């Protein structure tokens, strides 16, 4: 959704999407064979978040809060796709394309794995046979048409079309998020964190941390966990969400909101550092960057154990008014 927000900010006068959802959750998709490399440096198990919104609710909130509508078109023919991209570029209309980040030349994992991702298209690139694309990590880049075609064919092999997406806005709509939506998000976070299964919540974090510590004893090569980067983004989003809450809703919950902001800020920094350790170890091919991982994970777990109670206290205070 970063690409949608970028277009909304720059073209549609929506300053942010901060009110869309609040989320504290963990999801561990552990390979049955245990933690190992899938295609080094990428591990075979993901550790990520579990978003509280299904697609219909997400679209409804996008429309209700910000007047944002999304439309899409599926392509079965590459030449038709390129012709439409040319047409949008000629009119300076930004459209979003799905494009696997790992088809980007220069990415450390290029060719190693697959990933859902979206980029903003800017039409033909300056170099022959390239597309100009805007991506979060790379900024404006020239993507070889051959890479774009490879991604297109990958989707076709999955038996589905390749999609473009357009973002539009009804500027008259600018509503606050309703209290029931906020309470539902907080409840979803509490339910996830308190789950007693090993694939969700704090139980999952405990198992994952233990697996990582064991894995570090077995290997001496840098690695990265799929999905791990989403956690720091989620906590950053939570901080923005709390800051954007309608003051009329939080008048009686100042203490709880402040406590939650402090918790999210502290945890955001640690999840950021954890992710940074993995990214740095891979980019520098330096296993030593992972030395602090076990201690950091232990520190984070100790703090995360307090999160469900803090969310419950916030939920109670908001509900009480």
């Amino acid at each position, binding site marked *: 959704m*970063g*690409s949608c*927000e*970028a277009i909304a*900010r*720059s*073209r*549609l*006068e929506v300053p*942010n999407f901060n009110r869309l959802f609040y989320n504290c959750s963990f999801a561990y998709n552990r390979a049955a064979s245990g933690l190992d490399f899938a295609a080094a440096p990428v591990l075979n198990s993901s550790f990520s978040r579990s978003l509280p919104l299904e*697609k219909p609710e*997400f*679209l409804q909130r996008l429309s209700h809060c910000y007047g944002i*509508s*999304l*439309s*899409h*078109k*599926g392509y079965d023919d590459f030449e038709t796709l390129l012709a439409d991209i040319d*047409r949008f570029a000629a*009119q*300076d*209309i*930004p459209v979003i394309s*799905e494009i696997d980040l790992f088809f980007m030349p220069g990415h450390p994992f290029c060719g190693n794995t697959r990933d*859902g991702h*979206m980029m*903003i298209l800017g039409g033909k690139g300056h170099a022959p046979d390239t597309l100009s694309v*805007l991506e*979060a*990590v*790379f*900024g*404006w880049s020239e993507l070889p048409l051959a890479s774009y075609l490879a991604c297109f064919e990958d*989707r076709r092999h999955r038996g*589905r079309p390749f*999609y*473009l*997406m*357009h973002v*539009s*806005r009804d500027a008259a709509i600018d509503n606050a998020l309703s209290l029931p939506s906020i309470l539902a998000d907080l409840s979803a976070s509490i339910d996830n964190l308190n789950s007693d299964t090993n694939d969700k919540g704090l139980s999952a974090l405990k198992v994952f941390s233990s697996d990582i510590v064991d894995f570090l004893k077995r290997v001496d090569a840098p690695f990265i966990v799929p999905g791990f*980067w989403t956690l*720091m*983004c989620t906590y*950053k989003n939570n*901080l923005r969400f709390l800051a954007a809450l309608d003051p009329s809703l939080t008048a009686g919950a100042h203490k709880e909101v402040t406590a939650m902001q402090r918790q999210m*800020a502290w945890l*955001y*920094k640690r999840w*950021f*550092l954890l*992710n*940074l*350790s993995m*990214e*740095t170890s891979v*980019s*520098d091919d330096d296993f030593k*960057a992972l030395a602090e991982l076990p201690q950091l994970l232990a520190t984070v777990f100790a703090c995360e154990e307090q999160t469900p109670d803090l969310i419950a206290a916030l939920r109670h205070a908001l509900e009480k008014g």
Partner: protein
Amino acid sequence: MEDDLTQELATILGVRPDMIARDVAFAEQGISAADVRQVALRTGRKAPELIWGGMTIAGLAECFTNPDTREPDTGNLFAEMGFVPGLPDAMYYE
């Protein structure tokens, strides 16, 4: 020996200089896009190269060459070209 950019960002981010990657620096909570831009101006690096993680969204928006350009009136262009409302499952869940 760390270069100036690495040192400066490490100071801003509150991490050890050796934790700053060579090619992509990392923005941290409390660092505004203006901060990153200033670093970029002083060091001659492009702001998008410095922006990652929490700063991703602001960085993307500011990458547009003309941020004042507003969406042109496209009328029914997208409907005529076969665009349909909503988001396909593949773009939300995959």
